[in-house]
């Protein structure tokens, strides 16, 4: 009898990149729904625009590189980039702003470096930073979260769509009437104006720990993150590292000066901390690879987020922190090589 021949091992792999990416997308669904609940349908429009341009960028670049676009699209990584970018943007963002970030992320940060697996920088964060530099004014327009006791003008579904498509508000609304400072912005400007933490925390947009509404998005993001941990799509090292790096300085500073430094829970639930810890910093391609390296990478991101929030010009620092640590990855990987069994302490064969 005749048989076919193969190379060992003869067991099919158990993991799959496309399935990993799909599960990351699923894990973001609860947070996305809460986002829509608090900030309106703008998030959906942003997600659609970002997805269209991420996919378009991927298809065009794969064509130019002479490869199969279908193969690249089937790994879902472009959609993960689109989703993370949509989460980073205010719900009211004109389409060309989103498109600029999406295209830069996919075309420059991803494909010009060689595509999935070769990109040094996190594409979503690179895209976001380009928007931050090119269109800073649009990133200031955050509508206030949907809360009964906050007095502000809501935009309807069509008005939101109109803003996304044209960048203009209906005649009945003005930017000032519909937008509010984000909790992190309020904290920064409040402190700059010599107000105490207690005064700032008493503002109606502040919640139990961070900002109202915001902290629920954070909670649901964490639920998705824990699900990824249980499914072993991500490992614990980076989220824990980010937590340590951010909360340790935050706690120390809070204990030293509770009037001028918000507490650690505010940092944890404020801004994009939780999204960063579970979804952004954990992008395997642009992160360190060894367990020890990942812990260091996460801690570095956490410290940088704190430093930027506390002393920098920006209210939040997730994108810069991630990109800066992306640059440190080769060094971290080199310095945290695990001990090879049977080698001596210098890592040499005895």
């Amino acid at each position, binding site marked *: *009898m*005749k*048989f*076919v*021949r*193969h*190379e*060992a*091992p*003869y*067991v*099919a*792999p*158990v*993991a*799959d*990149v*496309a*399935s*990993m990416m799909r599960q990351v997308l699923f894990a973001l669904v609860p947070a996305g729904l809460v986002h829509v609940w608090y900030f309106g349908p703008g998030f959906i429009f942003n997600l659609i625009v970002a997805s269209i341009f991420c996919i378009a960028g991927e298809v065009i670049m794969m064509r130019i590189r002479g490869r199969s676009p279908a*193969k690249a699209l089937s*790994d879902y990584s472009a959609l993960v980039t689109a989703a993370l970018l949509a989460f980073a943007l205010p719900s009211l963002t004109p389409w060309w702003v989103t498109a600029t970030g999406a295209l830069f992320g996919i075309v420059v940060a991803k494909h010009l470096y*060689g*595509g*999935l*697996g*070769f990109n040094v920088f996190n594409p979503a964060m690179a895209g976001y930073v380009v928007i931050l530099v090119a269109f800073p004014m649009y990133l200031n327009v955050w509508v206030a979260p949907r809360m009964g006791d906050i007095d502000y003008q809501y935009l309807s579904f069509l008005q939101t769509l109109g803003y996304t498509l044209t960048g203009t508000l209906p005649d009945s609304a003005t930017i000032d009437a519909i937008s509010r400072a984000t909790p992190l912005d309020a904290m920064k400007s409040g402190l700059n104006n010599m107000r105490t933490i207690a005064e700032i925390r008493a503002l109606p947009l502040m919640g139990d720990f961070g900002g109202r509404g915001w902290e629920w998005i954070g909670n649901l993001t964490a639920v998705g993150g824990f699900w990824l941990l249980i499914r072993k799509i991500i*490992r614990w090292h980076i989220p824990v590292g980010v937590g340590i790096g951010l909360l340790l300085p935050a706690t120390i500073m809070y204990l030293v000066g509770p009037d001028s430094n918000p507490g650690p829970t505010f940092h944890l639930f404020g801004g994009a901390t939780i999204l960063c810890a579970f979804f952004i910093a954990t992008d*395997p*391609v642009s*992160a360190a*690879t*060894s*367990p020890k390296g*990942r812990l260091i990478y996460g801690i570095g991101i956490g410290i940088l987020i704190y430093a930027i929030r506390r002393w920098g010009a920006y209210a939040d620092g997730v994108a810069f922190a991630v990109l800066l640590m992306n640059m440190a990855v080769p060094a971290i*990987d080199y310095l945290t*090589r*695990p*001990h*090879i*069994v*049977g*080698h*001596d302490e210098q*890592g040499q*064969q*005895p």
Partner: protein
Amino acid sequence: MDVPVPGQLVLPIGQHVGDPAQPIVGIGEYVLKGQLIAEVHGTLGAPVHASSSGKVVSIEPWPVARRFGEPAPCIVIECDGKDRPVELAEIAPAFDELPPDVLLQKILHGGIVGLGGAVFPTAQKLMQATTCDLDYLLLNGVECEPYISCDDVLMRERAAEVLGGAQILMHALSIDQCYIVVESDKPEALHRLAEVMAELDDERLVLKLVPTIYPSGGEDQLVQLVTNLEVPSAGLPTDIGCLVQNVGTAAAIYDWIHDQEPLISRVTTITGNGVAAPMNVRARIGTTVADVVNFVGGYTEHASQLIMGGPMTGKSVNTDRVPLVKATNCVLIMSETPSPGPEIACIRCGECAAVCPVQLLPQQLFWYACADDEKSLRSYGLTDCIECGCCDLVCPSHIPLTADFRKAKGRIRELADEKARAVRARQRFEARNERLERDKRQREQELARQKKHAKAAGPAAIAEILKRKQQQKEDED
């Protein structure tokens, strides 16, 4: 279950690490069960014995379980079914009456090799071990790979022989402590071993339970698991005082020393969805897979791959004419492996590093293997890779890492050979130059000496020489 004597036995002369044995029987010769038919030839090797009685019909290349599947020389015996054994010496002397070196010499003649799959000639392994300071004998009862259960069955059915073999080994090498390492999910084997140990009442024997995690059955991995010591890279367990022997090898040593039966049969797992009744069988070395499968009820419609060995490191062969050899711990016959989808770029997820038993960074090694960067491959420990295949299994990008590492290792070996050849060539060249230089110097010195001599002797001597020359010329004419 014992497979009956087949109609034909195919015995490769190279069933072990080292030099193939040298056949000492002629075509047409009648051989008996247990008769030596090929003897050790070279510095490293093991003899081969006839597994049953019959007539040698040919010595020819035959398909065997090798990586590239080329045929290898085999002695083919047409069995007469009588299974007539060679005549034994009256009674074998008790092993503890023999001095260790005599015992080792005796083991050498039993054709015994490491039965865990590595098939290193046991006698040579033991002789090497005598040069080391040994603390422990580790009897490896951990199965090599998933699917394989031959060691489990052996321990259940032949616990006394396994432990008897351990006692012989301890005597031969003056070791005072033996751990019998068994996976914790083998209660029956543990129970049998414990029973026999109670009978033997030998306090040097200790049972050690380990969790069932592939690849704990690897020699270096087992040592680390049991003693918490790391076997040095490119070194041997004996370097840190441990001698590891498979339980099957121990039983084979017992059979040879105690019952004078050389290694002519072994327990093998026949499994996979391609066989009708998967089971462990005891078969004669040289029985073809076709005969064994016939014995266990034939193939099912799923039989499309034949793997000699386990699913992780076994060797895929294309015909069931291959014989069972000393290394064959498993014959896996199964359906086609489902395609995992196309290979894509590494996403640096690090899962491969998390599962690597040697703590290598397969994703880094993969980069360097693609770049053919020999220096980095070495410093990232490519040569420490045991090719267990774990990284392949967890890779979400479906990169055939193990196969790539095998190729990279081959290239490194080639480069090393080339370097060695270049060094030898240079040495030869330099030696030649030196020799030519020396000859030239000697000639010049000789010439100078003659000149000086002639000068000192003066014109008379010159006239004398000229005269002699003249004389010579006249004589020739």
